[in-house]
C-alpha cells in the first residue's frame, strides 16, 4: 500500500548550486556534535530512570542546524521538541565556547552580540531539569519557553505541548517583520504528524495570502508517535501542499547538509525579497522512538530501523567533510570529544543547582500593570493562593 511507496528514498533534491563555505561547515559540525552529545547524555539518563522522559533529536541535527545556520541576527525561530540543534545554533557563539576548534574569521558579527555561550548552555540544562536556573525557573518543561532578546540578536519562541499551535505564532512573528518593513525571516519547525492540525492550514494560508517571510520546515521522520505516514496524510509529499497555499515548497533529503542549507538559503532569499513563504519538507531517518523507552521504536519493522541507523546524517556529514578535505579523522574525533565534554560539564553543573523556590508556583500570571494589581488585590482564600 501507500506506506511502502512513501518509505522509499526521498525524491531527488533541487540542484545544489555552491559548495558550502568552510566556516559554515566548521560551525555546523560542532553544533551538530553538540546536539548529538546532549541527546546521548539525556538518553543515558532516561535509560537509567534519572529523568522521566526524553524526546531524542538524533537524526534531526542536519536539518535543524543546516536551516538555522542560514539565519542572521534577529531573524526569528520557533521550535518544537526535536529542535535542539536550531536552538544551539541560534543561541551560541561556538568560537567562544570551543575556541580550539575555530579559526580567525570564524566569528560572525552576530557572535559579537551574543552573550556568554556557557551561561546560556547552563540555563538550558537547568531548564530541562526544571531547576531554578532554567528559563522558566521550574514552571514549564524542556523546550517550552522562549527567549526574545533583540539586543542579543535572538528571537526564539519555544513550544507549547499542543503541536501545530506554534505555526500561526511563527506567522505572526513574520507579520511583525512585514509591518516593520524590515527584511527579516522567520524559521518555524514542525513534525510531519502535526501538519495534520488545522493551525498548519490556517497559518500557511495566511502566509500565502499576506506573502509572509516565513519558512516552515517539516521534520518528516516518517512517524508521529506510532502513526506512519500512510495513516497521516494521503498526498505524495507534504511539499505538494505548498502550491495549494500559493507558497514555495520543496522536499529535501535531510541526510544531505549541503542540500538542506542550500534550500534554506533559497527560502531565506525569497523571504527577504518579499516573495513570501516556503514549506521545506526534510526527509529524516527515524533513528529513535517517539520518547526513549516508550515502546514506539519497537513498532518500526527491524529492517527499516536498521536502514535508518545506517543513514545517520551526522556520520554522512562527517564522511563528506573528510572526502572534501575539510577535516580528517583526527579532527572529527576532536570535535566530538570537545562537544561531549562541554555537554557533560553543563549537565553536571545543572544537576548541582537548586530546585526552584516554592513561590515560583504562585508567581504572577499577569505582567505588571493595572490588571496585575487587580489580580493581586483578590483575597487568597478565594483565589487559591
Amino acid at each position, binding site marked *: 500500500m501507500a506506506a511502502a511507496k512513501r518509505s522509499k528514498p526521498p525524491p531527488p533534491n533541487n540542484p545544489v548550486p555552491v559548495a558550502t563555505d568552510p566556516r559554515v561547515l566548521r560551525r555546523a559540525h560542532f553544533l551538530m556534535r553538540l546536539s548529538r552529545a546532549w541527546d546521548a547524555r539525556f538518553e543515558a539518563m532516561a535509560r537509567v530512570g534519572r529523568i522521566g522522559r526524553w524526546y531524542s533529536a538524533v537524526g534531526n541535527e542536519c536539518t535543524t542546524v543546516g536551516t538555522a545556520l542560514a539565519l542572521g541576527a534577529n531573524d526569528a525561530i520557533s521550535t518544537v521538541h526535536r529542535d535542539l540543534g536550531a536552538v544551539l545554533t541560534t543561541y551560541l557563539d561556538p568560537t567562544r565556547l570551543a575556541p580550539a576548534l575555530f579559526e580567525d574569521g570564524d566569528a560572525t558579527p552576530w557572535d559579537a552580540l551574543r552573550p556568554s555561550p556557557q551561561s546560556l548552555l547552563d540555563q538550558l540544562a537547568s531548564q530541562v531539569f526544571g531547576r531554578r536556573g532554567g528559563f522558566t525557573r521550574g*514552571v514549564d518543561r524542556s523546550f517550552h519557553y*522562549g527567549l*526574545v532578546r533583540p539586543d542579543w540578536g535572538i528571537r526564539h519562541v519555544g513550544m507549547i505541548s499542543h503541536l501545530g499551535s506554534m505555526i*500561526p*505564532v511563527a506567522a505572526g512573528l513574520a507579520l*511583525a517583520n512585514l509591518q516593520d518593513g524590515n527584511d527579516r525571516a522567520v524559521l518555524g519547525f514542525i513534525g510531519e504528524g502535526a501538519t495534520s492540525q488545522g*493551525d498548519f492550514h490556517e497559518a500557511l494560508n495566511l502566509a500565502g495570502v499576506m506573502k509572509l517571510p516565513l519558512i516552515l520546515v517539516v521534520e518528516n521522520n516518517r512517524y508521529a508517535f506510532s502513526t506512519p505516514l500512510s495513516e497521516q496524510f494521503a498526498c505524495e509529499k507534504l511539499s505538494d501542499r505548498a502550491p495549494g497555499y500559493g507558497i514555495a515548497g520543496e522536499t529535501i533529503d535531510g541526510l544531505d547538509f549541503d542540500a538542506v542549507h542550500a534550500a534554506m538559503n533559497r527560502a531565506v532569499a525569497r523571504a527577504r525579497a518579499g516573495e513570501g513563504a516556503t514549506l521545506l519538507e526534510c526527509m529524516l531517518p527515524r533513528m529513535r522512538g517517539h520518547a526513549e523507552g516508550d515502546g514506539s521504536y519497537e513498532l518500526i519493522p527491524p529492517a527499516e530501523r536498521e536502514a535508518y541507523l545506517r543513514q545517520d546524517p551526522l556520520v554522512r556529514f562527517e564522511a563528506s567533510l573528510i572526502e572534501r578535505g575539510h577535516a580528517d579523522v583526527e579532527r572529527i574525533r576532536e570535535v566530538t570529544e570537545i562537544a561531549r565534554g562541554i555537554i557533560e560539564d553543563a549537565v553536571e553543573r545543572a544537576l548541582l543547582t537548586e530546585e526552584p523556590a516554592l513561590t515560583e508556583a504562585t508567581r504572577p500570571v499577569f505582567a505588571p*500593570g493595572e490588571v496585575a494589581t487587580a*489580580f493581586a488585590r483578590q*483575597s487568597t482564600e478565594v483565589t487559591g493562593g
Partner: protein
Amino acid sequence: MAETTYIDAIRRALGEEMDRDAAVFLMGQDIAAFGGAFRASKGLFEKHGRLRVINTPLMESGAIGAALGAALVGKRPVLEMQFADFVSCGFNQIVNNVAKTYYRWEAPVPMVIRLPFGGGAGAGPFHSQSPEAWFAHTPGLCVVAPSTPRDALGMLKAAIRDPNPVIYLEHRFLYRREKEDLPEGDLLTPLGRAHVAREGRDVTILSWSWTLHESLAAAEELAKEGVSVEVIDLRTLSPLDEETIFASVRKTSKVLIVHEATITAGFGAELAARVADQCFEWLDGPVRRVAYADRPSPYNKKLELSLLPGRERITAALRKLARY
C-alpha cells in the same frame, strides 16, 4: 460634547489608540474597507492602511496565534471576532498559548480580543452566546464587559494599553441603543474596578453588560415598592473587584446575581461562592441568581425572549429576596 453610541465609543477607542501608539494594529474578518460586520473599524483602514487594519482570511485560531507572535515582538494586536460565538474556533490558542505565556516565561502578551456577543436579536444558537465564563476560568486572562459607552471607550483604551491579554465582551444589543454625551480627551476606565451604578440599602445586584441595564430597570420598579436596590456594574469579571462587591453585600445583606450566560457554572456561580465565603456573617438571605436557562439560544425571537433574563424575571426575584 457629542452623543456617542456604544459602537461609536469602540471605534473612537480603536482610532485614538492607533493614533497614540504605532504598535497597535487591528486584525479580523472584513474589518478593513468594509469596517467590520458592525462597522467598529469604519474609516480606520483608510487612515492606517492594510498592515495596521488587517483583513484576515476566514480564520480564528490562526489569527489569534499570529497576533500572539506579533505581540511577542512588541506589537499590540486588537483582534475582532466577527461574532463572539466563533471564538470557540480559537479557544486553544487563547487558553493554552496566549493565557499561559506570561506565567511560563514572563513574556508580556499585550493583546485584546473583542467579542461582539449576546442575544436579543433572534439570531439563534450560534450568534447569541455569552462566553465570558469560558475565559474567566482560565488563569492569565483579563475578562471585561463594559455596559456603557463611557466604559466601552475607557476600558478598550485601558485594555489596549495593558501588557496582558484582555477578552473584551461588547454587547451587540447595546451597540446602537446606548448613547451618552462624552467629553473630548483621553478617557480611561481602570481595569479591575467595579462601579456602583445605583446606590441602595436593601439588596445588592451584581451584573454586567446588557443585564446591568435590565437590573437598573428592575431596581427602579422596586423603588416604587419601597425597596432600595444597589446595582453593581462589575465591568471587569477577572480579576474581580471584591472590595466593591463585598462592601455592598455587607451593607445590604442580600445578593442577586444577574447574567445573560447560561446558569450552570456561569460566572455567577463564582460570585456566589466568593460572597458566601467572604460575607457569610452578613447574609440575611440566599445568594440568588437570575440567568439564562441551560439551553442553546433558540432562533425564534419569542422563544429566545422567554429564556433571556430580562427585567420582569429580575423584578420577581428581587421581590422574593427582599422578603427575607
